[in-house]
């Protein structure tokens, strides 16, 4: 049972950008603006020019329903867009078209691994809205002499997912974000690698006090850091006898601190009212049809992996934590032993990829298949397999080439026997020590065998061979 000594309550608002749609949410501008000059993917609508009018992208609504269903929400029959009125340079109309009453979905949950076991985090709502533009400052926001605005991003479809404040630590928050991103990736409606694809605002309070809202978080790690900083900051405020105020704070990624944004605009009165230019949506009947098209989601896939491939739950969890990894694993497991595949994909390959900051896209499934085949056929050692993987990632080529080049084919039994005999003859002291009870002396003999066979012998086999020859 997690104590939660500081009474931490964390809620997260995650904005998922539907960048896999071809167009923006209310206009026909294309969404592939990422490498293009600023203000080159805009039209009167997303530029907010006077006289322009929004029209809803049907696919965006379908995607919103998909997300709602994947998060176990109730999808509304009747939903409506609202205006949220506030002023910011990235908001061309002086209001954002979003949802207020009657959001498209609400009342769901996802399960994460909490501090003390499985934790169900409530999803208050998942609704549709439009992205504002992108601001660029000279240096930091508080020191910049001017603000530059690029509206390419303005009007991109966003789904805002608001959690209940059920998380009790930055680690749980991090796990929520990982899980949420995982689920959304599975739905194939967003490319998480693109800039701005997923943004987080965090709300945190301690000891039942006021909450601080932290904006400008752009990574899961950043979220965890920001929240860790906030807990310390808030505790310090209390320790000094002060009171934590409700405010918006800006996360400075570089310095890993939050800065107060407190200014007159704190008095937010958004004056929500239904958007007169958009008629309501009646979408009853859409949900069941869309539910039928939902792909297998992470939790379901994890259970299936355990059942279908007989792998451990830990392996299944790790393999399904990323869609690409799960797909890779299954491709490999089709042709090679699934249990071995789990070990080598999950325990070995993933580690090597992480170390090099690569994704599983950097490795071919045929290569993994070959490697496992070689291992299964006892043709190479485990060390050899690791060597092959590393070489493929660093230099390229193919497993067969590398095996040939580096002579990694496992050495035959009698060569090991010869090497063992020579090692025993050449290291009498080690032999004596071992026979006298010093277990560790065997290691130097094993080392000698490995040296003689240039590392190609299987270490375990070498050990056994030596023991046999020593009459043990």
């Amino acid at each position: 049972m997690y104590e939660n000594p500081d009474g931490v309550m964390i809620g997260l608002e995650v904005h998922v950008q539907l960048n896999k749609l071809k167009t923006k949410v209310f206009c026909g501008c294309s969404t592939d603006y990422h490498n293009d000059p600023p203000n080159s993917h805009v039209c009167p609508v997303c530029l907010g020019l006077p006289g322009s009018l929004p029209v809803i992208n049907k696919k965006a609504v379908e995607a919103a329903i998909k997300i709602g269903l994947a998060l176990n929400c109730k999808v509304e029959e009747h939903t409506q867009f609202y205006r949220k009125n506030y002023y910011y340079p990235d908001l061309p109309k002086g209001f954002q078209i979003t949802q207020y009453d009657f959001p498209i979905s609400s009342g769901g949950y996802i399960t994460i691994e909490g501090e003390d076991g499985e934790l169900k985090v409530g999803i208050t709502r998942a609704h549709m809205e439009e992205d504002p533009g992108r601001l660029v400052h000279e240096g930091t926001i508080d020191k910049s002499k001017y603000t530059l605005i690029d509206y390419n991003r303005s009007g991109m479809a966003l789904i805002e997912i608001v959690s209940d404040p059920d998380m009790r630590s930055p680690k749980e928050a991090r796990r929520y974000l990982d899980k949420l991103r995982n689920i959304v990736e599975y739905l194939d409606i967003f490319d998480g690698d693109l800039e701005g694809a997923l943004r987080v605002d965090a709300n945190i309070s301690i000891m039942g006090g006021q909450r601080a809202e932290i904006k400008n978080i752009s990574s899961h790690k950043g979220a965890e850091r920001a929240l860790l900083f906030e807990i310390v900051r808030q505790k310090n405020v209390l320790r000094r006898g002060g009171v934590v105020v409700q405010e918006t704070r800006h996360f400075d990624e570089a310095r890993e601190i939050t800065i107060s944004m407190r200014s007159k605009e704190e008095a937010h009165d958004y004056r929500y009212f239904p958007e007169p230019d958009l008629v309501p949506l009646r979408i009853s009947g859409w949900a069941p049809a869309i539910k039928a098209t939902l792909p297998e989601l992470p939790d379901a896939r994890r259970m299936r992996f355990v059942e279908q491939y007989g792998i451990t739950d830990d392996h299944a969890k790790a393999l399904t934590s990323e869609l690409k990894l799960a797909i890779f694993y299954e491709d490999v497991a089709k042709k090679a032993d699934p249990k071995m595949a789990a070990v080598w994909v999950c325990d070995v390959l993933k580690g090597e990829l992480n170390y090099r900051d690569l994704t599983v896209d950097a490795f071919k499934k045929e290569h993994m298949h070959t490697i496992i085949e070689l291992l299964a056929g006892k043709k190479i050692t485990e060390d050899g397999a690791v060597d092959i993987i590393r070489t493929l990632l660093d230099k390229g080529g193919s497993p067969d080439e590398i095996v040939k080049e580096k002579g990694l084919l496992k050495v035959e039994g009698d060569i090991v026997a010869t090497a063992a005999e020579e090692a025993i003859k050449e290291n009498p002291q080690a032999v004596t020590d071992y026979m006298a009870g010093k277990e560790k002396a065997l290691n130097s003999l094993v080392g000698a065998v490995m040296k003689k066979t240039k590392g190609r012998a299987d270490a375990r086999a070498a050990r056994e061979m030596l023991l046999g020859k020593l009459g043990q």
Partner: protein
Amino acid sequence: MIGKKDLEHIGWLARIELSEEDKEKYTPKLNSVLDYFSELDKAETEGVEPTYHILPMNNIFRDDVPTGSLSQEEALSNSPKIHDGFIKAPRMM
């Protein structure tokens, strides 16, 4: 009725700077209009639903097909201050 402080607050919400003279000038006119609006208090609207949209239309969509954009030049054609294709606005703080 609106007093000076209320007017300052509304002026801020509406982002319209109001000079002292403006506040003097506007307050009586605004209050007479609000007075006139309070006619509605006499109307019986118990159980009446508000009308947000006058026509009973629902579900108007467009397909997810690109229809083209303005050129960067057209998009920036009315902006008084530009910098490298960005629109230049005053600093935030």
